[in-house]
């Protein structure tokens, strides 16, 4: 996300607020405000504000940290081969499971489709037995019901 350059001159209040936050080096300031800040930095007020911020910058610059040791560098590189290989293997297996899942889902969907399109297809070998009528199965219970009437 790029910042849109601000238009119009910068006032002392905004310049001081930016110096309070980002210090006296303008390259650390928000990109969108650097051009207008540079103009204000050329004024007496701007120079005084920057001088105050630069004092703390100079103090902060004194704090140095150690550079990485060759042993640390080697240990990190050595770990990379194992971790990358394991992660790729893990991804391969998950991909395999994913494909198997897709295949299974396809089979289930196909079965469901067949069930919906052709439900309970009658058998070509259906044999009418003695109790079967064209109105359904009139078994012993049906006979009993007729007698009860």
């Amino acid at each position, binding site marked *: *996300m*790029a*910042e849109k350059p601000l238009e119009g001159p910068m006032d002392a209040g905004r310049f001081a*607020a*930016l110096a*309070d*936050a*980002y*210090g006296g080096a303008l390259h*650390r*300031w*928000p*990109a969108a405000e650097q051009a207008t800040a540079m103009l204000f930095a050329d004024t007496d007020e701007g120079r005084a504000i920057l*001088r*105050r*911020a630069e*004092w*703390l*910058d100079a*103090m*902060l610059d*004194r*704090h*140095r*940290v*150690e*550079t*990485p040791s060759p042993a*640390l*560098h080697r*240990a*990190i*590189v050595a*770990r*990379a*081969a194992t*971790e*990358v*290989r394991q*992660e*790729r293997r893990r*991804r391969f297996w998950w991909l395999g499971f994913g494909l198997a899942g897709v295949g299974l889902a396809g089979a289930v969907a196909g079965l469901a489709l067949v069930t919906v399109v052709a439900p309970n297809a009658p058998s070509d070998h259906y044999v009418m037995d003695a109790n079967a009528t064209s109105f359904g199965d009139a078994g012993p219970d049906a006979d009993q019901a007729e007698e009860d009437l």
Partner: protein
Amino acid sequence: MGADPDEELVRRIGAGDPAAVQAMVARKLPRILALAARMLGDAAEAEDVAQETFVRIWRHASGWRQGHARFDTWIHRVALNLCYDRLRRRREWTMDELPEVADEAPLPDAMPGDEERRVGQALLRIAPRQREAIVLVYYQELSNIEAAGAMQVSVDALESLLARGRRSLQAMLAGDGDD
């Protein structure tokens, strides 16, 4: 957001390229180690954080996709989370309980050659979120937008943390050298 300068290197690491691994360590290790050292004030713990950060890089390299954040911003976030895990363990504080107000009492005047240690002490005495903001913007030289993204705050909130942090440092460090 433009092209991510690290994206190609990450892709090559994911493909198992050993030269890319070496290049990534050379490019990022000094930055991550410096970040952790300034956040924790302990060289040994900083090395542990750097190692853990790289383990996460190796694990995510084959699946890395640039989303809203650049790769560099993402590894800063990973390293910072690891630093906060250690700060919480160290002080048994939750994130919300970490102090927002620094002890601004001036530090003793430095002996010649001792100012580096004094600045390090002052950094450790300001609130962790203020320290995080200063480390990201001042030392790591992240832009305001990248730093705000890594800290998951607005740019206005970042500027407030920076200004409060710098004021606290100024109060602690001001001595004969102050104007």
